[in-house]
């Protein structure tokens, strides 16, 4: 029967229509239920639109300073290794201000899981350029379109992290179709399993629509992910040295 996951609180999402956060929250909670992690999970949401994730996830959660999620998660996991610790981070958080924390947590092979939401803009602050903003994409701080000579290129954190030895499982998915949402759920499950199996750092990058800041309808935003974002950020498993077969 299709019901609300046990680890998803009875609350109304504050997210904009067509936003990917609510879909991702839901599939994460489904995985937490299915893997029976509700009493072990500790989540670290970032400043930004998803700062209120703790109003939705019915698991222990704590706020983090912008970009420091991987360090906070490291501290929790080191102090209490029995916990299943995840960060929930946007592109500005994980790929700009928190690049160092993320790379080094991965390099130490911290047994934590990063859920990395890539929507190519800073959402809560009003749609400024993110490190993952596409070339020519207009944002409030690239009003003429992102120009590589001036603003540099969209950064591919997952590919960069794949070079890091302590990172054992990295996959990029999207939440712009039922099929992609199913793949996202499967990737999240595998990322948590990687942590449970004590193998190292795991990360799922999720291309997620932000219709409000993209100035699009939700349907156009789903299409834009397929047409534009996946060209720069191709979907699929980027690294998997877990030695585990995929189980459906």
């Amino acid at each position: 029967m299709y019901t609300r996951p046990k680890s998803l609180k009875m609350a109304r999402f504050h997210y904009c229509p067509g936003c990917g956060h609510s879909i991702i929250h839901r599939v994460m909670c489904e995985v937490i239920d299915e893997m029976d992690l509700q009493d072990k999970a500790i989540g670290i949401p970032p400043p930004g639109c998803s700062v209120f994730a703790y109003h939705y996830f019915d698991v222990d959660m704590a706020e983090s300073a912008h970009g420091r999620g991987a360090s906070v998660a490291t501290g929790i996991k080191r102090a209490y290794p029995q916990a299943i610790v995840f960060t929930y981070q946007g592109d500005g958080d994980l790929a700009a201000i928190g690049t160092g924390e993320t790379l080094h947590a991965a390099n130490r092979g911290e047994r934590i899981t990063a859920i990395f939401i890539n929507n190519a803009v800073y959402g809560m602050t009003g749609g400024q350029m993110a490190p993952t903003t596409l070339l020519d994409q207009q944002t409030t701080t690239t009003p003429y379109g992102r120009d590589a000579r001036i603003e540099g290129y969209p950064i591919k954190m997952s590919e960069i992290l794949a070079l890091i030895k302590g990172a054992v499982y990295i996959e990029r998915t999207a939440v712009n179709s039922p099929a992609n949402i199913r793949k996202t759920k499967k990737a999240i499950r595998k990322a948590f399993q990687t942590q449970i199996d004590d193998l190292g750092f795991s990360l799922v990058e999720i291309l997620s629509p932000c219709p409000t800041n993209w100035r699009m309808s939700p349907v156009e935003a789903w299409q834009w992910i397929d047409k534009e974002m996946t060209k720069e950020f191709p979907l699929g498993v980027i690294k998997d040295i877990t030695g585990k077969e995929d189980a459906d």
Partner: protein
Amino acid sequence: MAKVLMDGNSAIGEAAIRAGCQCYFGYPITPQNELTEYMAAHLSRRKGCSFVQAESEISAINMVYGASLAGVRAMTSSSSPGISLKQEGISYLAACELPAVIVNMSRGGPGLGSIVASQSDYFQATRGGGHGDYRTIVLAPSSVQELADLTHRAFDLADKYQIPVVVLGDGMLGQMKEPVEFKHEAPEELPVRSRALRGAKNRPSRIIKTFTSKPTELEEINWSLYRRYQLIKKEEVTYETFLVEDAELVIVAFGIAARIAKGAIKNARADGLKVGMLRPITLWPFPSAELGELADRTKNFLVFEMNMGQMLEDVQLALEGKGEIFFYGRPGGVIPTPSEVFRVASRLCYQKGLK
């Protein structure tokens, strides 16, 4: 336990382990590296303990924040420029009412400054240091023994009031070797704080946060912190007095400067000059009332610091215009000698006719 000869930085590490510190996260910076190295050698392989050499000071303080969330005693240490970087995390610790111990073996500033002992981080330590309306308890040891004792006390105070506590030493205290006695054995069982995040097992899920879109809610958090700070001001002031009973000139100095001043006072007494000292051990809360009471008997105060006059402002506030305040300071990492301070004190005595 018998006394052992130890450098100050290592003594902090040993005292922390004996206080049940379970997690230490650090980053190399002179003059506190012996502490990080001590924890690598003595804490990292202890059962249930963790040591990480972080990639930055910011990361290290956020690991402390994480470990404190999980309910264990956690510590980080650094020196002045690194402590500036930690301010973000200290503000979050204060906001979320999380205990932690932060050691600053301070050095000359501003900027990269020098690696020599200085006391120029007084403002930063006693005024909160990071963004927002908060305080940290600040303990100022003046010997290796006191580094050990106050490190232990720092963990107790952090837990008692659920706030970050700063141990403000300096490069000289950290580097010098003295006999030290550790009064506590390391606990067999490491304590876990209530309100820790350890998974919602047999209890509802927990949220540790301050962010809110309702100003009145945040205001209440601020008032609640304020009430705790008022209680700390009432309960936790500590200080030492030295020959103040008949003193006509009272030197006010903290940390290593007080140690230097003590030498000067002994010289002054040998010359028949009635000089004494008040040494704040807690810099916040500051012994304002105690200083004020001294002013009923003594009219002349010499504030001596290894900076350009920072604690001076707290002394001015405490005395409320009672008595005359003089200042002598050496900023930038210059370490004054007892005879230098003696010359300043004796000149004042003669100028003021305090014989």
